[in-house]
């Protein structure tokens, strides 16, 4: 990959992941593997309809089944937790359904047994009757529908800008973010051209291969929760809140995750296992099947109406964006997706007049939440497809029109925040160069056509958020890093210890990692949104520097000359008379941030750093069938200066591969409220034969001035541009425009058939 590797210290080196041997020998630890003595397995009885009131719930046969320990419903939960509602933005999600079900597959009751097969049999014996209510499935219709998913809104108080929604009734709109800059209507009136398009994306699921899993165990000091979670600190705080306990009575432990991608965030199974552990006074474990994941959390389907006023030579002077987010039955982190993505919905372009409305809409689908990209891929799909359509209409080269409008360093973007350390131009130029954009491209003759396209997007990071780290130096100079960042495969264990090793001038083997354990590792907001390299990286660096400073002070205290290269062990021996003692350094980091104005959405400090990602695609289309091969994918990103270039490279290609699935093959398909394809048999994620023949990744030469060693996040950057790059390449090849995802061979063929005046007759 094109990046210069620094050879001094550990930072900048492509060290192998520290858990490599464990992973290749099958010995890495996952909650999936956890067994606790006396443990009860939990199986869930789920709603068979999308929306309705629970008329009757009969668990008697299940209770009588030999081997069943207990059957629990919301009545039992409410004896322990009178208000058993959770959620990071709204306290709207019940631990088990109360009176009403709001989506297909919603948990209604649970069966516990030491034999999971018996628990499953028990679930099959539960009977429920519902008074069905009309379903609400579409995000645009849902915004104005008079069937309400929730009788009343219950904001959690974690978001100050949701306070005004407290107690609101008769709405499915959980959040409306708006941004007003300049005067779009006046600009549209004056513009040479006005273009308007609507784009849609589908509901998809993260599909981590380790399905969601949590366990809980009552202990003498309270409760321990073992969970595959990206947010152990949040779990502790939220469970303590639900139980009315102090934080220090809830312990949350997280080993490695078998994939996360945003699925394993906030509260998923943790409230349920916590309640069940306390009700039964036994260790309990809920290990979801792959199928159950589809009923638990997903990615927002969206509708994006985008309208641009453009001069005749392609300068965008005004843009209006209306975005509807299909949040499903429970808000989860949807309101934050809606709001934060709103900052950048107009695109990485220098536009004077911007009008944006972004709606988080409740519907009766399984809940949507955070998924790699956090709303940005859906937006980039729309605005980069739209940009290409404008270019074609005005007969301007697609890269040239982007050059004309791209946001440059120091310019204010839509919120008013000035772009800083944002190498958008460089990403665009490197993308064009790698795509050989200036050279002619053979589009083929005959029935097989080829095309190429690009898409570039950017993202603001969630702010303000806090990370705290501790470095514990031992008497022989080796040390441990205590850090609540969760390694779900993105390599955080490795890069965080590289930072410590670099600051303390240690070989990497002398730095070990203590995995998240809220009794030991300090607070971290969560591992999400590509925030960890910057926030936790800075905290870790500060903690290591703090430890270093303390070691220097200790050396001075024991009379060693300053600057003397004394081994750390010697310092301890002098202090304690033997190999004994610790030096503990800590560091905490919260960036500066200014909340946007509620009415205008404007702020001059919208984000501590920008993520930028561009993708180029070359495709080949069999026009007789609609079958398409992706020949080549090029990913270019600005992630500052990589701490581990090899890991950055794999984050870029991994993100693009995932987004390829969302672009071409994945869709949660509903019919009459039923989810038809909640398994990998019919929900197809990319396999090895779906990979393009060629894939290249590049992190441009850049530096985040206040990131640790110049670094910033990268986990999502290669998801931004993939979908529009492919749609743009298709348009380049065959002149048809697809405005909905996924782009399947059938959809492409039908579009071709319509364009040829011979639509497919059904």
């Amino acid at each position, binding site marked *: 990959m094109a990046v210069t590797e620094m050879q001094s210290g550990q930072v900048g080196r492509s060290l192998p992941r520290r858990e490599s041997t464990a992973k290749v*020998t099958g010995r890495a630890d996952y909650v999936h593997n956890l067994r606790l003595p006396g443990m009860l397995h939990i199986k869930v009885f789920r709603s068979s309809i999308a929306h309705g009131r629970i008329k009757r719930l009969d668990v008697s046969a299940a209770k009588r089944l030999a081997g069943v320990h207990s059957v629990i419903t919301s009545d039992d939960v409410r004896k322990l937790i009178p208000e058993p509602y959770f959620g990071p933005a709204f306290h709207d999600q019940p631990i088990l359904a109360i009176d009403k079900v709001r989506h297909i597959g919603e948990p209604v009751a649970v069966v516990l047994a030491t034999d999971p097969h018996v628990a499953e049999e028990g679930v099959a014996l539960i009977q429920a009757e519902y008074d069905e209510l009309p379903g609400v499935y579409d995000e645009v219709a849902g915004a104005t529908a008079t069937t309400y998913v929730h009788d009343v809104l219950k904001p959690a108080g974690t978001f100050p800008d949701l306070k005004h929604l407290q107690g609101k009734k008769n709405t499915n709109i959980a959040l409306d973010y708006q941004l007003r800059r300049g005067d779009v209507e006046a600009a549209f009136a004056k513009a040479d051209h006005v273009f308007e398009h609507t784009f849609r994306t589908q509901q998809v699921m993260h599909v981590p291969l380790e399905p969601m899993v949590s366990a809980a165990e009552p202990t003498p000091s309270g409760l321990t929760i073992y969970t595959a979670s990206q947010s152990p600190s949040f779990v502790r705080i939220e469970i303590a809140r639900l139980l009315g306990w102090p934080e220090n009575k809830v312990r949350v432990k997280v080993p*490695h995750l078998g994939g996360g991608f945003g699925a394993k965030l906030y509260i998923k199974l943790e409230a349920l296992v916590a309640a069940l552990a306390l009700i039964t006074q036994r260790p309990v474990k809920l290990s979801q099947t792959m199928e159950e994941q589809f009923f638990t959390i997903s990615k927002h389907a969206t509708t994006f109406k985008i309208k641009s006023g453009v001069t005749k030579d392609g300068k965008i002077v005004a843009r209006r964006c209306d975005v509807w987010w299909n949040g499903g039955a429970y808000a989860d982190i949807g309101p934050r997706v809606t709001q934060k993505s709103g900052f950048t919905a107009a695109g990485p372009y220098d536009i004077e007049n911007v009008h944006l409305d972004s709606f988080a809409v409740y519907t009766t689908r399984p809940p949507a939440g955070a998924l790699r990209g956090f709303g940005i891929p859906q937006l980039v799909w729309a605005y980069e497809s739209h940009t290409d359509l404008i270019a074609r209409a005005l007969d301007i080269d697609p890269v040239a029109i982007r050059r004309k409008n791209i946001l440059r360093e120091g310019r204010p973007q839509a919120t008013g925040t000035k772009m800083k350390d944002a190498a958008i131009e460089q990403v665009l130029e490197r993308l064009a160069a790698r795509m050989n954009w200036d050279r002619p491209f053979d589009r083929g003759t005959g029935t097989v056509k080829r095309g190429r396209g690009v898409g570039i997007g950017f993202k603001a990071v969630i702010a303000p958020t806090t990370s705290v780290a501790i470095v514990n130096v031992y008497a022989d100079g080796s040390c441990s890093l205590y850090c609540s960042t969760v390694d779900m495969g993105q390599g955080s264990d490795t890069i965080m210890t590289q930072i410590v090793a670099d600051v303390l001038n240690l070989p990497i083997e002398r730095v070990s990692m203590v995995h998240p354990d809220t009794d030991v590792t300090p607070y971290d907001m969560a591992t999400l949104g590509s925030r960890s390299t910057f926030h936790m990286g800075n905290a870790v660096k500060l903690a290591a520097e703090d430890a270093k400073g303390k070691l220097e002070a200790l050396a001075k205290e024991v009379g060693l000359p300053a600057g003397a290269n004394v081994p750390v062990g010697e310092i301890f021996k002098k202090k304690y008379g033997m190999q004994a003692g610790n030096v503990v350094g800590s560091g905490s980091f919260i960036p500066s941030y200014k909340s946007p104005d509620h009415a205008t959405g404007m702020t001059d400090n919208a984000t501590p750093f920008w993520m930028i990602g561009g993708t180029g695609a070359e495709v080949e289309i069999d026009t007789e069938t609609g079958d398409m091969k992706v020949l080549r994918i090029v990913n270019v990103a600005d992630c500052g200066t990589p701490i581990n270039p090899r890991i950055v490279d794999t984050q870029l290609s991994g993100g693009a591969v995932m987004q390829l699935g969302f672009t071409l093959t994945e869709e949660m398909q509903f019919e009459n409220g039923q989810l038809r394809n909640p398994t990998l048999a019919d929900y197809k994620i990319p396999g090895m034969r779906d990979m393009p023949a060629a894939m290249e990744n590049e992190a441009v030469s850049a530096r985040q001035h206040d990131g640790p060693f110049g670094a910033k996040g990268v986990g999502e950057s290669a998801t931004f541009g993939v979908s529009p790059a492919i749609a743009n390449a298709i348009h380049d090849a065959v002149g048809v425009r697809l405005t909905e995802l996924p782009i399947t061979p059938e959809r492409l063929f039908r579009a071709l058939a319509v364009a040829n005046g011979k639509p497919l007759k059904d």
Partner: protein
Amino acid sequence: MSNTSRLVNFTLNGRPVSARVDMHHTLVEMLRTQFDLFGARESCAQGLCGCCTVLVDGQAVSGCLYFAALVDGATIETVEHLGASDRLDPVQQAFIECGAFQCGFCTPGFILMTKQLLDENPNPTEDEIRHYLSGNLCRCGAYPEIIAAVKSAAAKRRATA
């Protein structure tokens, strides 16, 4: 003994063992709950992802679609049998060097399938690699690195052959 369970005697990672299993228990379930071998994992439950790959009589099978009761008399090998305590198998080594995993959940399955592929075909083309491994899924998207690791492992094995 009830006729919905049985005692199975088999060889597991080179050692003779026995286990009592119910007829409806799967191979991957037995390995995890009775032998503490966690390298094979049930993920898709449909034999499509390869996370539950186990070798039965030298052939890779989906452990989640194999009845434990049918392993009587068989030779079973899991990823834990690969390499030695001080020395990794060349396939494992290649996976590390090429960075061919991220979360690692699918990794044992890929490693066992790669070993099978190279046992049968010591010098596979990229097309042959893609076809052989088409039934192993990696959601983290490490496919390019995995292909590189397979090629590297093939070279390592040829060098020491």
